[in-house]
């Protein structure tokens, strides 16, 4: 997206700048298709904005983190699934699609929420907490405890920054 004649950005290492830039880009793509929205459209759009937010986070983080890989994969698959869905929609065979989707999803999620190594952060504590955390952090279901904590830390950092960017944006919009 960056034009060739603009080689540098402000500060390529700044997470916030990158996030803001990316998110604005995504948001702009969404906004270009704007129309007068009714309720369902708003819902859909909010969903898209949310996806855009996570996508920008994952994009900025790149593939070096498990959570961002997971998000990116999900987004990619979402596109694939959407295409499949659309295609099958035309054929009006929704049931099969659901089967297909379910098969896919269950295949991937079957081992989910279980720690493969029996490697828990706090064996004496509440295991439900850790499982909960694994569900919250994308891509962390199959991770050992150390990795889980690492990913959580990075995810939190990125998410907080993203929230900040979004909040600034909202404020900007609402006050203008």
């Amino acid at each position: 997206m960056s034009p060739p004649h603009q080689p540098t950005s402000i500060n390529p290492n700044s997470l916030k700048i990158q996030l803001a830039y990316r998110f604005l880009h995504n948001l702009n793509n969404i906004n270009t298709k704007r129309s007068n929205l009714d309720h369902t459209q708003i819902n859909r759009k909010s969903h898209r904005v949310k996806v855009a937010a996570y996508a920008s986070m994952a994009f900025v983080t790149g593939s070096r983190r498990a959570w961002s890989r997971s998000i990116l994969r999900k987004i990619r698959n979402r596109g694939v699934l959407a295409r499949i869905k659309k295609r099958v929609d035309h054929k009006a065979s929704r049931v099969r699609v659901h089967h297909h989707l379910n098969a896919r999803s269950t295949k991937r999620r079957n081992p989910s929420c279980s720690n493969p190594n029996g490697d828990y952060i706090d064996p004496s504590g509440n295991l439900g907490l850790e499982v909960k955390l694994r569900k919250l952090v994308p891509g962390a279901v199959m991770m050992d405890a150390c990795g889980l904590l690492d990913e959580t830390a990075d995810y939190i950092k990125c998410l907080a920054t993203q929230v900040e960017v979004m909040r600034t944006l909202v404020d900007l919009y609402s006050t203008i």
Partner: protein
Amino acid sequence: MEKEKYFNNGNGIPQAWNSIFGMGMGMGMGMQTSEGFFNQNCENSVDQRDIFESALSSIVSSPASSHPGIGPGIPIPGGTGGNESIVVRELIGRLGSICNSGDNNGNNSTNNSCYNTPLNSPPKLNLSILDHPIPGNSVPENTILRNPVPGNPSLPLAQFSSDPGFVERAARLSCFSGQSFMGINKLSTQACEESVSVSAETETGMKVQSTNSNVRKRKMVPKGKGKETQSSSTSFSDKDDKVVAEAEKVESDAKRSKSNDEENGNEKDGNGNGNEKQTKENAKAEPPKDYIHVRARRGQATDSHSLAERVRREKISERMKFLQDLVPGCNKVTGKAVMLDEIINYVQSLQRQVEFLSMKLATVNPRMDVSIESLLSKDMFRPRVSMPTNMNPFDASAQPFPYAFQPQNNGIVPDVSENQFSVNPLMAAMHRNSLMKPSHIDGLGEASTFWENDLQSVVKMALGQDQPQGFHGHMKIEL
């Protein structure tokens, strides 16, 4: 060098080392300063040995003060020699040269040190030559003279005595003495016996061995120049503290093996033992280098599973600490479960906020076009400290700023060209900013107030510059 001085003093003959040594030896021998013993340890690499022998340097014995008359040419008083010589010895030994030790026991002391360093010999090796007086008075002398003094037939008869202290010192210095006439060990004494009729004190030898110093003496192949005078033995002493460089070790090993071939039968026996010992020690001396050291405290289990588990727990707690800093309100919480709870709550709240904000963004007037500059400027104006909880950025932006452009920054409004979000102004602004501060690097996007301040000013500057240009018509500045 002090040695030379020493020598010169002793002999009064300033000459080249070898000649001096030879002279010294001759003198000493001739003088029969029986009180002085010395040992010579020379390091030689095997190759150099011949040269070494030929070029051999040898010992000096200085007569004790008590017998000044005896040694005509040697003015060194034994008393001073004792102390001084030790110091000198250490210095010289450090320098990779020889050491003298003069000891005065019941007898007059003898100081001497000599040694020879062949030019080729690696500087690392130290020659330590010590002499040890034996109180009992058996005065062993070593003659390693290449050129035996003709007048001293008695030289070959020198006896070797070894001093445990010397051995220790030698071991410490990790000196290899190529040729030594010390009867430090039994071995050496045996060697001495061969070439010389020596009354070797096995007692001292035993003593030395009991000190656990590994000093081996090897006998050099006699050249046959002197009658019996050339009995040279090489003593290798290894340090007990395994700091010896491996190269050295290898070298010494090679030396050892070679010299073993040359050794006489008697010495072979002795050296064989010594060799085994030394190789063992060398093996021991090489500790495994890459090795994660996990130390179990007292009372902790030491089996591998427990250790691994402990390491894992330490890692986890370290990460938890990191997370603690990251999650607000988690600082005072103790206990992993509670902390996990906090973390989960925080992540959930963040995700909920994202959802909420995205909904808000969706409902907000979508026609607004946003430039990253306005976003950034707004971002910058928000104080960092209250970041997570400050919902209204304008509270923060109302803060006084020393910059003249501050009011204008708040009012930046994207132009009427809605929905045509042109990257150009954005990129232009970014580019300008980057030009303003090209080398600025921020490690983390958040929480660096320093950076915030900088960028703030930068943005302001950029804005100030951009104002007259009107930003390609895309931006309009409201006051």
